[in-house]
């Protein structure tokens, strides 16, 4: 803890190079891609708090992301609220919906795939509600009035937008790092490893999981708000679509769930390789999802601890080695 291991240092260096590349090599396609990849990285960091630290695999993080975006959009469009205040409300709404879904699911003791299914159901219900009611713009979504300028939380160009999401990503990374190194983080990891043993040492598993969902919701809500302020538009499939839920979990799982940099590394690698495949084969709709599925299968089969597990492989022996190695004498 505290000190950076060699694998983490390699990952940090690679990611830092990726982060500055749009400024070094300006290109329209590259910056658009970079904004999207970093935005999804924020969402991946959010997922990592529940899925990685607390071990509660959500399949419906779109519910948190979309609620953040919709609340911020509705407050601006319907009530004319200041965009920064609306953004704060969006983040709070993300935390609130996260805690609400968590309270319902955990109160009834849902774990594992049951929890995953319930979160997916919540996201789908919210998607249908958002596309049905007038206040959320129904089928046509919500468009923010175009008022360029940072005073209105709108970005003059894509490079400013990129700088913003990059800063947001660093804040989210710092927040998740702080959580991981806190008592709450230790409690989350204990709950992930064994809920019964955690209870035996005085950990209130329900409360810990609820807090994980609330923190995750706040970060996911912030990602949703960032999307809204950059695109100035939100609709139900974008906000609550299952693609968002899938992207939220793919990055952390591929990069290494529960690690600090894994979610970002996984998301960036997935997006870069996905982009290469798209330009190589041509962009048939849905082809990237087929590709994501294939990458996920390969990672789960060969790298159960993700890319960070691969980078850290020199440091910590794999399970099979550990079993055959003689234990140290007491």
């Amino acid at each position, binding site marked *: *803890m505290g000190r950076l291991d060699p694998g983490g240092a390699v990952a940090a260096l690679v990611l830092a190079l990726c982060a500055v590349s749009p400024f070094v090599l300006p290109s329209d396609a590259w910056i658009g891609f970079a904004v999207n990849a970093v935005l999804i990285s924020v969402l991946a960091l959010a997922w990592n708090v529940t899925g990685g630290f607390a071990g509660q695999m959500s399949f419906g993080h779109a519910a948190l992301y979309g609620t953040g975006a919709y609340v911020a959009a509705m407050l601006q469009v319907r009530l004319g609220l200041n965009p920064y205040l609306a953004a704060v409300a969006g983040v709070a709404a993300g935390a609130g919906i996260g805690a609400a879904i968590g309270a319902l699911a955990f109160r009834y003791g849902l774990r594992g795939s049951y929890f995953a299914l319930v979160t997916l159901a919540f996201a789908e219900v919210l998607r249908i509600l958002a596309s049905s009611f007038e206040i959320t713009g129904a089928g046509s979504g919500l468009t923010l009035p175009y008022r360029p300028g940072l005073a209105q939380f709108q970005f003059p160009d894509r490079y400013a937008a990129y700088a913003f999401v990059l800063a947001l990503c660093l804040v989210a990374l710092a927040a998740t790092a702080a959580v991981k*190194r*806190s*008592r709450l983080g*230790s*409690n989350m*990891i*204990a709950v992930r*490893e*064994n809920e*019964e*043993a*955690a*209870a*035996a*040492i*005085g*950990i*209130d*598993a329900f409360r810990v999981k609820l807090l994980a969902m609330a923190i995750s919701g706040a970060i996911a809500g912030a990602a949703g708000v960032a999307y809204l302020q950059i695109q100035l538009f939100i609709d139900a499939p974008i906000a609550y679509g299952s693609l968002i839920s899938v992207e939220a979990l793919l990055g952390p799982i591929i990069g290494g769930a529960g690690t600090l940099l894994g979610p970002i590394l996984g998301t960036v690698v997935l997006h870069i390789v996905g982009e290469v495949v798209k330009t190589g084969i041509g962009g048939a709709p849905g082809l990237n999802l087929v590709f994501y599925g294939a990458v996920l299968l390969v990672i789960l089969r060969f790298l159960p601890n993700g890319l960070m597990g691969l980078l850290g492989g020199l440091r*910590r*022996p794999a*399970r099979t080695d*550990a079993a055959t*190695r003689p*234990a*140290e004498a*007491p």
Partner: protein
Amino acid sequence: MLSVQGVTKRFGGLLAVSDATLDVAEGRIVALIGPNGAGKTTLFATVAGFLKPNAGTVTFRGERIDGLPPHRICRLGLTRTFQIVQPFAGLTVRENIACGAHLHHAKRRDALDRAAVIAAQVGMERMLDQPAQDLTVAGRKRLELARALATEPKLLLLDEVMAGLIPSEVAEIIPTIRRIRDSGVTILLIEHVMQAVMSLSEEAYVLNQGRIIAHGTPAALVRDPAVIEAYLGHGAAERLHASHAHA
């Protein structure tokens, strides 16, 4: 310190614990023994809040704790270990113990420092950075003990911490448990290793088919006909007595 009064626990038609009453005085090492399936672990789980009793009361330091969730009971100062050890496999020894130490230490640094101190108490100071999944059975048992100890309990419920250990490992852990008691922790333990029960505990309760059938010093209990029959079957005490008489 701990008073269990008339506790009954049923699973459907199975009466696992029936009207069990026992007391543990502060500063003692009390053993709970009995044949396999007697209900010892069920009684432990009921006391620690993992199961709710169908009848009876559990009082700990003057406070009713039956029906409280396990984490609340732990915070009052009563911590249990598990017979089937439950280490957090993905964490190191130090991180495992720190999870327990965090109960009373909010800062990460303090919890990790405290973990090192506790590890030394159970003889694990040289394994601090080992992943828990690499430990031997004896190591896991010690870790289970250390993690419970890290919560700074007033009363420690030890569920067969010596099962599966070889005699030399048992001989090592006995003084460890005695030292824990001497540091001010009262201990109630379930044990099958009679060598340990005899040398550690001043008093013992015998549980058979869910009922407390005897209570006394371990030395007196091993001569009690009811206890011998519980372990060896009906009529065993008489036959044993007869064979001694003939010899």
